[in-house]
């Protein structure tokens, strides 16, 4: 099983450090995860702690495309960037961004049962109790509303 951790384009030191901490790694292994892929952006952390028996840990600053990781992951742990919320997801809001609107979104989507939220301190527990089957599924992408909006503005027949 694959756990994919992503911080997006910027840095989120606390999240990367938390994921690589003993309690979270223990929790992941206890739930049967054998692979951990971390896209850490500009985050700073101690790279000496990234080997562990039974858990294959892969580190990427950036990846040309995260699509495959999202598709293959059994669990995604990430900031609440819009690109990541269609997946079995635990959101850890990044408190250091200019305006922490990510929390508003994560709260709204957690309220509709589309994802789980967690603080840094609770991450190990959140991993332990995470059950993707209990999450509500998203509607597939429907571009017709936006297409109608632009066509209407440009005077095309709908």
């Amino acid at each position, binding site marked *: 099983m694959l756990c994919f951790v992503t911080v*997006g*384009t*910027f840095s989120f030191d606390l999240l990367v450090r938390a994921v690589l901490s003993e309690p979270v790694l223990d929790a992941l292994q206890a739930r049967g995860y054998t692979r951990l892929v971390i896209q850490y952006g500009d985050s700073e952390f101690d790279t000496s702690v990234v080997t562990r028996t039974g858990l294959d840990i892969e580190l990427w600053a*950036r990846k*040309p*495309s995260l699509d495959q990781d999202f598709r293959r992951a059994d669990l995604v742990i990430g900031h*609440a*960037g*819009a*690109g990541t919320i269609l997946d079995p997801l635990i959101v850890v809001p990044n408190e250091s961004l*200019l*305006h922490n*609107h*990510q929390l*508003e*979104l994560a*709260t*709204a989507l957690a309220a509709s049962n589309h994802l789980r939220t967690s603080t840094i301190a609770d991450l190990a527990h959140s991993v332990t109790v995470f059950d993707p089957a209990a999450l509500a599924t998203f*509607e597939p*992408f429907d*571009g*017709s*509303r*936006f*297409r*109608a*909006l*632009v*066509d209407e*503005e*440009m005077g*095309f027949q709908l």
Partner: protein
Amino acid sequence: MHLPIVFTVLIVLYRLYCALPRRRNAVQHSNTKSLAVFLGSGGHTSEALTLLSALDFERYCPRTYVISEGDSLSAQRARDLESSKASSTKYTILTIPRARRVHQSLATTPPTALHSLLSCIYHVTLARKPFADILILNGPGTCFVLCIAVCVNRFLGLSAPKTIYIESFARVESLSLSGKLLYPFVDRFVVQWRQLLKKAKGAEFRGLLV
């Protein structure tokens, strides 16, 4: 002493020129419209490209992807979308300087923003005529200067694209900084959560778009 009179005459002449019918532009019944979209990196780029993927590329051409300096990832993702659409119609990728970097202090922003604005005005006003029929914006800050460049064109009576701002799906309770900045200047202001209609009068809500 004659200065005010000269000035007034000049303005009247200029506005008369602006009011002249433009037969060149009368051929507007074309089946295609040119489109420009700003790709603001990260989640902004994801949302903008997802939105764009919904459009008919044979109808909206040529397309211009406007990216910030150094954002090669957005450029690559734009190229990926283009190749996945396999449209025979043309597109270009245009790079402009950033108005403000993430975590840049608000105090040092003005000179950076001015540089960015001048570049946008150059591209929107001078480099290509017309720039586009429609311009899609969804943040962050640098897209504001692009929008202002469009407003400068409008003020001068030059051709300017229609502007649509799509507030990020990630904005539930409060508008983003770019949303607040662009709100007075764009033709259409679209939000993706109903709660935001209270924050922006005249905004449109059509459900989730991405």
